[in-house]
């Protein structure tokens, strides 16, 4: 499997001189199976340069797995140029939205209303299919299987796991580590803690032993108290999670948009220094636009 990062920034695209090394595009990850089938994880603004890179291969069949439909994970979709060219095929997978009672097709076609974008869905030339996924539903994409698990974010967010010929990668999408909403003295505290423990076990099992874990690492432990409940992870929390799950390599992504490259590299080094490497620990790295990983 090959993984290429086209967008690694969280929340909002952040172009400019301070983000040149890691990049300013929002989340979009290309995964190629051993049989070269194309899987795309999220459709942030990084989807536009990805689209440009696909021209030599047209016509294509792409399988787009949306973790959730917040702007920074879908904003590149209308600019996915193969959609305007006959012969291409895009299969889109994602969760139901219980708040709006809409499936993934209804949510995403809302993005193509005329007031937001000049081309209506009916005018797109590619063949586009929508598949609203149940939790843990498995999708076969050529020689790979893709399954999902609900993570913790202020909208339903699927983390995806791709397995291909014995190699595996998990992308969390946006995910905040679960915390107890009760105080220790509250009578409900113990029951809630038990639910969290069960869920954490499910999350750890989902990513157990994967070759690569790509995890939302927006915050520092020191940022976190002011941003609790916003649905994002920390360096320290992800290192602990990756250790617990026996992950081989951990990539920190969804970089906080106000963090310049220098600061990002510094806080990453500080986090790693707080958790000295021990035998069996995952290798921990920052994502950057254009980074290619082969497993």
């Amino acid at each position, binding site marked *: 499997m090959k993984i290429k990062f086209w967008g690694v920034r969280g929340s909002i695209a952040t172009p400019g001189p301070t983000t040149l090394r890691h990049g300013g595009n929002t989340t979009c990850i290309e995964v190629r199976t051993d049989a070269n089938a194309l899987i795309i994880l999220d459709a942030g603004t990084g989807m536009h340069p990805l689209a440009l890179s696909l021209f030599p291969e047209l016509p294509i069949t792409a399988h787009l797995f949306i973790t959730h439909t917040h702007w920074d994970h879908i904003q590149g979709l209308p600019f996915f140029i193969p959609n305007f060219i006959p012969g291409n095929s895009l299969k889109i997978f994602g969760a*139901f939205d*219980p*708040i709006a009672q809409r499936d993934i097709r209804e949510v995403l076609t809302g993005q193509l209303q005329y007031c937001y974008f000049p081309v209506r869905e009916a005018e797109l030339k590619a063949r586009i299919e929508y598949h609203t996924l149940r939790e843990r*539903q498995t999708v076969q994409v050529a020689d790979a299987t893709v399954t999902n698990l609900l993570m913790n*974010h202020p*909208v*339903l967010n699927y983390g995806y796991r791709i397995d291909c010929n014995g190699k595996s990668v998990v992308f969390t999408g946006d995910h905040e580590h679960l915390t107890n909403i*009760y105080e220790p003295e509250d009578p409900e505290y113990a029951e*809630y803690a038990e639910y969290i423990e069960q869920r954490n076990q499910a999350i750890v099992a989902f990513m157990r032993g994967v070759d690569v874990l790509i995890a939302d690492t927006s915050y520092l432990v020191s940022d976190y108290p002011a941003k609790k409940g916003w*649905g994002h992870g920390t360096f320290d929390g992800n290192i602990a999670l990756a250790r617990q799950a026996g992950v081989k390599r951990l990539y920190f992504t969804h970089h906080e948009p106000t963090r310049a490259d220098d600061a990002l590299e510094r806080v990453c080094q500080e986090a790693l220094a707080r958790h000295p490497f021990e035998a069996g620990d995952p290798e921990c790295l920052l994502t950057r636009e254009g980074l290619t990983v082969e497993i």
Partner: protein
Amino acid sequence: MGPSKKELPRLVEALPAFPPSVCRILKLTSDINCPPREIVRVLDQDPPLARQLLRLINSPHCGLAEPVQSIRQAVVIVGINTIKNLALTVAPIEMLGRDSDRTPFLEGQLSHAFAVGLIARQLARRLGLPERETSDFFIAGLLHDYGKIVLHRLFPTRHNKALALAIKKQLPLHKAERELFKLDHLGVGALLAEKWGLSPHCARAMGGHHLPDDPDSDSPLPDCVHAANIIAKTVGLGVSGNPRTKTALPESVARRLGGTLTELTGSLGEIPAEMHKVQLFLNAWNATPADSA
């Protein structure tokens, strides 16, 4: 049979208890920093509401791998934000009584009540009231016809006759009710407001929404509910059971609200979309077996 004067005390006794969850959820969620456990506590204290929420979360559409058994477990799996936002729509529906004895009239009433609540809140926003005060307008609009729901539930045969009489004679429904009940939904609304200890403005919205022209009122709430009721009927949101619709607002109401019926109707904003969402919830509800919670 309908209530006579002697039967009034029994009627009052039979009136439903005030369902406070919706008010508490609206107040809590107007603060973005509201502790999640406070929202869960409201749901803990309202088992029917909690059941309906779990029913939606466990619906096949939502696609959870394992059904959740409790609100606390649901918060861990789908997150507090999803629970909070579901509760914001489900609690008002539950308040109006989404039970098994619903009839086409009650379905239409539910949509009408929702529309009047949403429009009354929109009118309050248009007047520049602070957002934290506008939930009272929503509640008052939601409850303004509750007397009708109570009459229909307690005396379904006679109330159906009143509905038919109103259509046949082209009477306002409250006049048809008076012919058959000696009491109309406004009177029942006033009794309810008294029993529930609601504010005088909310009581006026429930007991006098057809005659709101009270220049001495120090709140725009009765005016907003009165106008919202007419706007909802004008644009056909829900079914009030009243065959007659006013074609204009009283001049004094239009002056106080700063717009004619046409102008206010033109400022509905997202309300038709909100109503569509309510209908989708009702559809999902109806499509989900009751025991799936």
